[in-house]
C-alpha cells in the first residue's frame, strides 16, 4: 500500500476558547449524535468521540455501519474510573453495574457499534504520548492487510487534576475516515508512518504535552487548509513518528 486516503474528518473541543484557537473547524459536543437513552449514561469522552466521528463519516459520505473502527485514547473513561476508584476506598462504597461496564477503555467503541448497528471489528488502544501515532499505525496495518476503509477516532476527556498534575486538559476528539490506497478526490493522501526527527510545531508544544491526542493537530490543519506535500509529525516525541502528507489539489485554497 503506497498511501492511505483521508475521506472525511471531524474534531470536537468542548472548551470554546480552545476551540476557536484551533487551525481547523472544531465543534462542541453535538448531543444529537448520541441516542437520547445514552445521553445521561455516557461520559464526556464518549460524547466527544461520537460527535467527531459523526462529522467525519458525514463528510466522507459513508455509512457508519460498514466501517471497522479504531478508537484511541490515552486515559479512556477516566472520569468514570475515577468515580469507581473513589467509591472502592469507602467501606460502603456503591459500585453501580452500568458505571462499572462504562469504565472499560472500549466504552466509546462499544456504544458506537451498538448505536450504529455496526458488526465490523472495533478496537480500543492507548500508547501514552504516541497514542495518535499508534492509532494511525494500527489503521495503516488494518488497511494494508484487509483493504477497504475504516474510522479512526482519537479522544481524551479532561482528566481529574490530581492524577497527573499539569496533564489531561483540554478535552479533545478527532475522527478520520481513511481508505486503503490513493483515492481520487480525497482530502489528503497519507504516506506510510515512519520514525524521524521532524520537530512538533513549537506553538502547540506545551498543549500537546498536556493532552497527547493533540498530536493530531498538524495533520488536521493540513486537512483543513491544504498546502504543499510535506512530512509532518504525528507524535510529539523528539524522535517520533511522522508521515508524508499530500493534500489533494482540489482542496487548495479552500478551508
Amino acid at each position, binding site marked *: 500500500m503506497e498511501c492511505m486516503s483521508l475521506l472525511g474528518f471531524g474534531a470536537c473541543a468542548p472548551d470554546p476558547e480552545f476551540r476557536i484557537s484551533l487551525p481547523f473547524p472544531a465543534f462542541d459536543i453535538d448531543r444529537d449524535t448520541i441516542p437520547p437513552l445514552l445521553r445521561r449514561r455516557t461520559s464526556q469522552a464518549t460524547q466527544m468521540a461520537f460527535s467527531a466521528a459523526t462529522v467525519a463519516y458525514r463528510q466522507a459520505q459513508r455509512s457508519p455501519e460498514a466501517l471497522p473502527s479504531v478508537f484511541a485514547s490515552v486515559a479512556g473513561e477516566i472520569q468514570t474510573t475515577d468515580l469507581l476508584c473513589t467509591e472502592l476506598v469507602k467501606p460502603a462504597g456503591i459500585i453501580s453495574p452500568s458505571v462499572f461496564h462504562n469504565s472499560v477503555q472500549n466504552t466509546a467503541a462499544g456504544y458506537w*457499534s451498538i448505536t450504529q448497528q455496526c458488526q*465490523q471489528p472495533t478496537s480500543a488502544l492507548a500508547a*501514552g504520548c504516541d*497514542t495518535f501515532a499508534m492509532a494511525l499505525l494500527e489503521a495503516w496495518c488494518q488497511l494494508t*492487510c484487509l483493504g477497504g476503509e475504516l474510522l479512526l477516532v482519537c479522544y481524551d476527556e479532561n482528566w481529574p487534576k490530581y492524577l497527573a498534575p499539569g496533564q489531561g486538559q483540554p478535552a479533545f476528539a478527532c475522527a478520520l475516515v481513511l481508505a486503503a490506497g490513493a483515492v481520487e478526490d480525497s482530502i489528503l493522501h497519507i504516506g506510510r508512518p515512519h520514525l524521524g526527527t521532524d520537530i512538533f510545531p513549537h506553538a502547540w508544544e506545551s498543549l500537546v504535552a498536556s493532552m497527547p491526542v493533540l498530536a493530531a493537530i498538524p495533520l488536521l490543519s493540513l486537512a483543513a487548509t491544504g498546502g504543499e506535500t510535506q512530512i509532518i509529525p504525528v507524535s510529539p516525541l523528539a524522535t517520533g513518528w511522522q508521515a508524508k502528507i499530500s493534500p489533494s489539489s482540489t482542496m487548495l485554497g479552500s478551508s
Partner: protein
Amino acid sequence: MPAADPKAKPEMTKHPQIPPVAVTAYQCVSAAGEDVEALYNSLIANRSCLQPLRLFDIPFKTVVGEVTSPLPNIRQSLKAYDCRNARLALKALNQGEFRSDVERAIANYGALRVGLVLGTSTSGIYDSENAYAHFLSDGIMPSDFHFMQIQTAQATAEFLQRELELQGPCYGISTACSSSAKALGAAQRLIMSDFCDAVLVAGVDSLCRLTLRGFHSLQLISPEACRPMDINRRGINIGEGAALLLLERQSADNTARPRLLAVGESSDAHHMSAPHPEGTGAVLAMTQALRLADREVGDVDYINLHATASILNDQADAKAINNLFPNPPPCSGVKGLLGHTLGAAGAVEAVVSLLALERGFLPGTCGLEQADPNCPCPVIATPRLECAPKLVLSNSFGFGGNNASVLLEVA
C-alpha cells in the same frame, strides 16, 4: 457442507489473506503456577487452582485465580512503572528461556524491528486503588503514583519495552476480555505490514477491587469455584495472569514452531455487558479467522471456548459454534482452573491452545459435571490425552460486544 472425513481430504494449497506468523516462544504466569510447565501440569490434572482471595478484602464470598508466589522487583531505573501488573509481566518474562528468545530476536532483526502489543483490561489499577486510599485520607496522591506509567492501558507495554530495550511500535489494546486476543491480531498485522519482523504480545491483568466488585455488582460472581457450561453454574471467578508470546515472520529458522494463522474480529452491536443471545458476533469472528487463513470449519480439531460460566456467555458461545459448525469439534473451557483473567485471557488461552497443539492433548472443562442442554456444542469435561489437534480456534468475547477468535496451527 459435505460431511467428508477430514482425514481423507487431499492436501490443498492454501491461500491465506494474511501470512501466518511463527510463535517462537511463549510463557505464562497464572494461578496454576509460575510457568508453562505448571500450566501444562494443571491442564492435565484438570484440578481447580481457584482459592479464597488473599490480596485484599472484599465484602462477599468468592474464589479467585490468584498468583500467590512472590513477584520480582522492578529495577530502580524503571520504578515509575512499578505495579502488580508490571511485576506479573516481569515474572513471566523471567521464566524459562523467554527473555533470551526476545534477545535473540533483537540480535537478529534489530531493536527497531521488534514491536510490542499488550492486551490488558485494568492495567495497574490495583495500585491506583491503593493510591486512592492514600488520597482520600491525606488529600494527595502518593509520591510514587505515576498515572501514565501505572494506570493507562499501555503502561505495562512501555515497562516491558524499556526492560527489554525494544524500539519498535509499542501500544496497549484494551477491549475488556478480548484485549490480548486482539493484540495477537494487531501483532500479526505489524509483521505483514513490514513495520516489524518480530512482535512480543503480552496479555497481562491483575486482580483488583474494581473488577471483583464490578462483576459482583452485575451479579455475575460465583461464591464457589466456577462451573463453565454446567447446568448448575453460579457465575464467574476472576483470575490474574501474564502470558507472553513472541511472534516472528516465518522463515527457515522457525518452520518447527507452531503458527498463528489469523485472528478474526467482530462486534455484537447488541449490548455493553451482555453477549448477543444467538452469538451472531461470535460467528462473525470465527468465520473471519477461518476466511483470513483460508481454512474450512471442518479443519478445526478443537475449540477453546470463552466459557466464563455466566449463563448468557456460555449459551451464546455454544450457540455460535452450533450455528457455524455442522459437526463441531470437541470444545472445552479452562476458566474453572484459572479463573477469568479478563484482558489477559486471550493470550493465556492462546498459550493453552499452543500447549494442546505442541504436546498433543485436549484440555478439559474443570467444574463441568452436568452439561447445560442449552449449550449445544460437544463440551468435554476431562482432558483427552490421546488426541493431537492440528488446528485450534480460541475464542475471547468482551464487554461492548467485542469479539476475537484466534486460529493456531501445529508446525
